[in-house]
């Protein structure tokens, strides 16, 4: 039997960047095939070629043994390929039925098409356990259910081969488990699934085979049963990496950051953080676990002074911060520094050269210039030194910030904040979009800061990261802190329940 997908010698360049170099891939029918690789390894480009967003410069695509040309997503859909994007392509104010119909209305009038969609959705619900309220407004659905709508859209269009791009990035662990259950039942019905992810745990849990990409090349395709996470990590990075950073037990010191009954209401009047109270001590990493969008971002921004809390207060080293001085500028002066969650929107200015991004938030420090004028030579020399210490590549302070990879951008931001000797450090998503090699480096830095007595508040949607780094873990759901655990005394299932809002009292 010929494979469902066969890619032969695919090449694709963007300008001088060779994103895919002579890539071969063979995906057997009725299997779940994982594709792993660091950011920029070429996974997304390869899948975009398969789905018709890009055309390969050279190479051949075969579907079920037949060579075909895929010039647009329509061609891909015709060939039975469906894709579920990381960022959903849904129209939120429309209902599930309307979203599934979109682009496949079947005529000028909607009635006939709608009846067809309803019948087909009922069949899919029966066959695959894909149950959903078809008249619900998509915007009201949970993220997990929105993803289900995306899968339904692909299946309705007759997809035999389903590509999922980082599908679990936005899901709680129970939602991810539900997704995996669904993927298994799709496989049992003979569908083929391609899963792009950077979470090795998921690869091990669900795939039959796994292909590893590195720097645009396909470096290996392995039977999942015959490999291990360390082996995959080594293939991805090209050298041995530690997946878990060692850290010694440490008794935390005095409380440096105390958050008391903090509530945040956003510009639309929605309560984002409700009565959060906690303490972070010197030499302690407190992790906040939660699914993205449950108030962690707003909590960090409120502590940093970027948002005015509706209620509550914070204390730094025992001193209550008055609302008049609770602004980012003053908080920096008081030793509370902030590595923001969103590098490109907050952490740096993509259009600026790196040395200008490297003073964001500190541009009025007297030693950076003379009077009102900044000393560019000095900024460049400063950053050159930091780039060496933090192994930023390329070590080019004049290069535009947007030209660095995610990991190197993050190192520039970290260097800026850490080298100013914080007392308290807020860290949001420190390794989002960062290569495995750089993750190890960043984790080590954070641990050594903690060992030096800094109080660190860590927000991450990567549960592994939270469990690895934190001394104590708080969980957030719907803006509330739903639980607190010592990192040594909890596990994923326990945290997953808390993140889903099942609190200790309720349990």
């Amino acid at each position: 039997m010929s494979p469902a997908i066969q890619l032969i010698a695919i090449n694709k360049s963007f300008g001088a960047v060779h994103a895919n170099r002579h890539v071969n891939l063979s995906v057997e029918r009725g299997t779940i095939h994982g594709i792993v690789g660091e950011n920029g390894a070429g996974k997304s480009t390869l899948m975009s070629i398969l789905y018709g967003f890009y055309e390969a410069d050279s190479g051949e695509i075969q579907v079920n043994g037949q060579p075909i040309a895929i010039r647009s997503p329509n061609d891909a859909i015709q060939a039975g390929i469906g894709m579920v994007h990381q960022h959903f392509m849904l129209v939120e104010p429309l209902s599930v039925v309307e979203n599934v119909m979109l682009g496949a209305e079947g005529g000028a009038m909607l009635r006939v098409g709608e009846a067809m969609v309803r019948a087909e959705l009922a069949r899919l619900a029966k066959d695959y356990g894909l149950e959903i309220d078809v008249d619900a407004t998509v915007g009201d659905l949970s993220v997990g259910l929105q993803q289900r709508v995306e899968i339904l859209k692909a299946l309705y269009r007759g997809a035999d081969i389903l590509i999922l791009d980082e599908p679990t990035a936005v899901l709680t662990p129970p939602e991810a488990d539900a997704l995996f259950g669904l993927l298994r039942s799709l496989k049992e019905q003979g569908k083929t699934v391609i899963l792009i992810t950077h979470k090795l745990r998921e690869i091990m849990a669900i795939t039959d085979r796994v292909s590893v990409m590195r720097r645009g090349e396909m470096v290996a395709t392995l039977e999942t049963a015959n490999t291990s996470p360390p082996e995959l990590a080594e293939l991805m990075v090209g050298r041995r990496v530690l997946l878990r950073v060692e850290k010694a037990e440490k008794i935390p010191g005095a409380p440096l950051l105390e958050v008391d009954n903090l509530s945040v209401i956003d510009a639309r009047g929605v309560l984002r953080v409700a009565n959060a109270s906690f303490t972070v001590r010197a030499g302690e990493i407190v992790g906040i676990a939660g699914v993205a969008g449950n108030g962690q971002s707003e909590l960090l921004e409120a502590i940093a002074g970027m948002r005015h809390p509706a209620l509550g207060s914070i204390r730094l080293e025992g001193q209550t911060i008055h609302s008049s001085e609770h602004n980012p500028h003053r908080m920096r002066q008081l030793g509370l520094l902030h590595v923001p969650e969103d590098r490109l929107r907050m952490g740096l200015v993509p259009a600026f050269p790196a040395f200008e991004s490297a003073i964001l938030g500190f541009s009025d420090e007297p030693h950076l210039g003379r009077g009102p004028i900044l000393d560019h030579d000095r900024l460049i020399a400063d950053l050159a030194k930091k780039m060496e210490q933090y192994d930023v590549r390329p070590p080019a302070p004049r290069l535009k910030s947007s030209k660095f990879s995610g990991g190197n951008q993050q190192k520039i931001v970290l260097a800026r904040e850490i080298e100013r000797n914080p007392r308290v450090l807020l860290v949001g998503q420190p390794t989002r979009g960062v290569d495995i090699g750089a993750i190890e480096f960043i984790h080590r830095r954070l641990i050594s800061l903690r060992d030096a007595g800094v109080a660190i508040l860590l927000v991450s949607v990567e549960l592994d990261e939270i469990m690895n780094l934190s001394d104590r873990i708080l969980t957030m759901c719907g803006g509330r802190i739903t639980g607190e655990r010592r990192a040594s005394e909890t596990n994923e299932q326990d945290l997953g329940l808390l993140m889903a809002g099942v609190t200790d009292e309720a349990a």
Partner: protein
Amino acid sequence: MSAPLDLPKWADTVLVPAISVVAAFLVAGLVVLAIGENPLTATRYLLQGSLGTGEGLGFTLFYMTDFIFVGLAVAVAYHAGLFNIGGEGQATLAGLGIALVLNNLTFLPGFLLIPLGILGAAAFGAAWAAVPGYLQAKRGSHIVITTIMFNWLASVLIVYLLVNVLREPQSMNPETRAFPDQSHIPFMHDVLAAFGVEIPASQLNLTLVLALAASYFVWLLIYRSRLGYAIRVVGSNPTAAVYAGISPARIIVIAMVLSGALAGGLAVNELMGYQHRLLLEFTSGYGFVGIAVALMGRAHPVGIILASLLFGILYQGGAELAFEQPAITRDMVVVIGGIIILFAGALDGLFRRFVAHLFTRQKLARA
């Protein structure tokens, strides 16, 4: 994700604009051809009239002075992410500021009166820009809408004042009495004559030097100062500004104040340097030309000086052309200017992509 448009700096700042200008002239040539005139002759008149004679060059540089100020005004606001199209109104009010200072402080000597007049222009221009800036910063009223409205307000305000308040009682013209002699900014031909250099007389005056100084100041401000840094952060990434503790509202007001003050330079050149009285419509739509100048100069002072020179040539040469070839009217010259704006501003990306494509192909061929 499109192919990266990476160009060497010289290609980005010189080659691409040059291609735009050449393309614009080719298309304008077709227009000239279509009305039955010879484009080559027209080009010759245009260049001859603007650069070929000392007098013509003087007028070209006089217009260039106007365009540098309004171009800088648009550029400073642009760096803060604002589209200030209120240069006309701000320059008009700056003219009022000049008239009030010069005609009320007639007893002062020139070395005091001239700087005070310039400050008056800057202050009134700044104040007229500050209001839309404040409304944008605090109330979210879109700056494009409010600055347009403020252009109209300025033009009716100045008509009212010149007709009813500031006009000399015995005069029929809606204009103020002449400014005192000591307040006139010296003409370039007079200044150079003092050093024994004879050049033909024109409207060109020392304000050109002020315009070049302002260009240097704007470069220093935007690219080297802490304030300029904050302005650029707000303009290119407002969320990052909030993160950095920079108040976007404050920066928006400051940028608009600076922008309005720079627009006031147009009034300094026209009124203190040449007309020596406040009169109606002295801004002649140059405030809008500033948008094209800033776009074409990529909001960089050097680019703005070059673009101002080009538009100076176009205005002066165009006037000569309309005189020499009656079939090509003043309106035709406006059309040609419009074509240049279209190519340099709106279609800029077209040639950029094309040039970038050539460069990457060349790079790959070498690799």
